[in-house]
């Protein structure tokens, strides 16, 4: 026993004696997240990816761009762990360099989409009425297009290139975040602590950013993580179609595309970039699942 952890004061107050450490929301989250083995592994893998994307160019054994015509389409060997492509470039080095591109595209596009969508969702949910109708109809219009088709359409207007891929993916992320944030805004707006904030005279801006936004943050984080996976996939698809990164850029989708002519003779050229995409997307999805289980208030233990 924590040596009789409470003491009654003369005026009737009961004061706990042990200054137990405060259970912050973050420590609660960490306690639950730790239990999700798979998600922790996925998280570690993603951290590794980020490290690689930072120091990648310094650790690659070969140049990712310079051709080496002596080693064309070499299968995986000890010298070239993942083999070489049609120009003799080391695929392993290219994948490592490509990590930076894929993560950058995934992260920035979803970030832009999340910021825009969150802002629209908060406003739409909080003010309701015609503001809500206008924003939600706009989202419905975007939803009516299949994502990849919308992206192709946007690129058709803006022209091919990695920056435009980011813009395209960001635009079709906006309505998804707007909807999620709007629905949690609606339920948070009805909570009593928001009413309490109104009763002390807090301005709408303060209520939105201090009381409602932190409450929507957990679903934003979960969705953010999951969307990164999807965005990487979409960006790779666009590059595969030749609409995104242009050769000789070591973008994974572009690498995949350049290998398809040798699918029968040199399958490793497509296999390794494909495997990198697969692992990365899977890791982000697993992490997102784990985050949801740890953050979802409905899953709180009794």
């Amino acid at each position, binding site marked *: *026993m924590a040596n*009789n*952890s*409470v*003491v009654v004061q003369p005026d*009737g*107050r*009961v004061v706990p004696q042990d200054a137990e450490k405060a259970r912050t929301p973050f420590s609660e989250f960490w306690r639950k997240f730790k239990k999700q083995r798979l998600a922790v592994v996925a998280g570690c893998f993603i951290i590794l990816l980020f490290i690689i994307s930072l120091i990648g160019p310094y650790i690659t054994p070969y140049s990712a761009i310079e051709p080496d015509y002596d080693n064309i389409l070499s299968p995986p060997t000890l010298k070239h762990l993942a083999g070489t492509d049609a120009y003799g470039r080391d695929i392993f080095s290219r994948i490592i360099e490509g990590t930076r591109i894929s993560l950058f595209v995934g992260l920035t596009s979803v970030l832009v989409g999340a910021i825009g969508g969150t802002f629209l969702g908060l406003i739409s949910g909080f003010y309701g009425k015609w503001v809500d109708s206008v924003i939600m109809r706009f989202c419905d219009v975007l939803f009516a297009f299949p994502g990849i088709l919308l992206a192709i359409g946007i690129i058709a207007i803006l022209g091919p290139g990695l920056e435009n891929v980011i813009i395209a993916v960001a635009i079709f992320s906006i309505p998804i975040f707007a909807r999620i944030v709007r629905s949690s805004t609606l339920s948070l707006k009805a909570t009593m602590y928001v009413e309490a904030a109104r009763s002390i005279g807090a301005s709408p801006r303060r209520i939105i950013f201090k009381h409602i936004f932190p409450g929507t943050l957990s679903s934003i984080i979960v969705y953010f993580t999951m969307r990164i996976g999807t965005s990487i996939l979409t960006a790779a698809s666009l590059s595969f179609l030749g609409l995104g990164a242009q050769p000789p850029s070591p973008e994974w989708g572009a690498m995949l595309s350049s290998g398809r002519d040798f699918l029968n003779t040199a399958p490793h050229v497509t296999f390794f970039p494909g495997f990198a995409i697969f692992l990365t997307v899977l890791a982000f999805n697993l992490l997102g699942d784990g985050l949801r289980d740890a953050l979802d208030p409905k899953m709180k*233990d*009794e």
Partner: protein
Amino acid sequence: MDNKLLEIENLKTYFFTDSGRVPAVNGVDLFIREGETLGIVGESGCGKSVTSLSVMRLLAHTPGRVVDGSIRFAGMDLLSLPESKMREIRGNEIAMIFQEPMTSLNPVYKIGDQIGEAVRLHLKYDKKKARERVIQMLKLVGIPRAEEIVDEYPHQLSGGMRQRIMIAMAMSCEPKLLIADEPTTALDVTIQAQILDLMRKLKEERGTAIMLITHDLGVVAEMCDRVVVMYAGKVVEEADVFDIFENPKHPYTQGLLHSIPKLRRKTERLQSIPGNVPTPGNMPSGCKFAPRCSHAMDVCREQEPDLLQIASGHRCRCFLYQNDLAKEA
């Protein structure tokens, strides 16, 4: 009459959660005689509802499990019965009504079908006979237009009506014991008066024993023959209703009685029990009430007192009285 219908001895029900083992009920002893109303009083988290769920063996879908003790009902050991036998008892010999009449009824079935289900299951009535029985029960609990209400859905009824339906359902198989867990807490005062009136009438007419779980001492005074006061998973006092209100012994019972405002008593200031109800994960050692007790002695913080008889039919778990007993002996 001194036939014990239900006898609970040293019941311990623990909840196993990911933050550890939580003793919700930690050694409860109580009994109910045939045809009597026993009130179980206590504050949130004292284990009164878990006790009733343990009796009904309805803990399967919770992380809770009975870890020790015995529950004897009409000569049977409920804890060792197979589940199939338990199903026959549930709803037939022991029925239960809950606090929330809104959520206890399935919204997609008609009233008649829900009550009829129990009748057909336990009394083996056919459909037509069951329907007649349902209408008869609805009339018994004072529902107007009983013939029409059988074919209506729960959402078409008010809260008071739904609680009547719950009582009709519970009483339809003429149980020997009715467990009522805060049956009127969700209802308005005037509706509460109707429901309490109905329960009293049913008890007098049918001789059903009632285990009435509540935090409202007014309800207890009006309804009960005997009272058990629970605190932190244990029974701290047990006596007949007059003794509890006129001669309470345990400091917690005394504090509870003094802290409620009473109509027309004109108390200037309420006495209150300092501190908070201890949470299961954070129990003080010794007597669980000691940190909040104005009579606490050294021994209270070290040892846990036993539930001992201090007068005929009056048991109390407090060292204040156990020393007297020791001296006499």
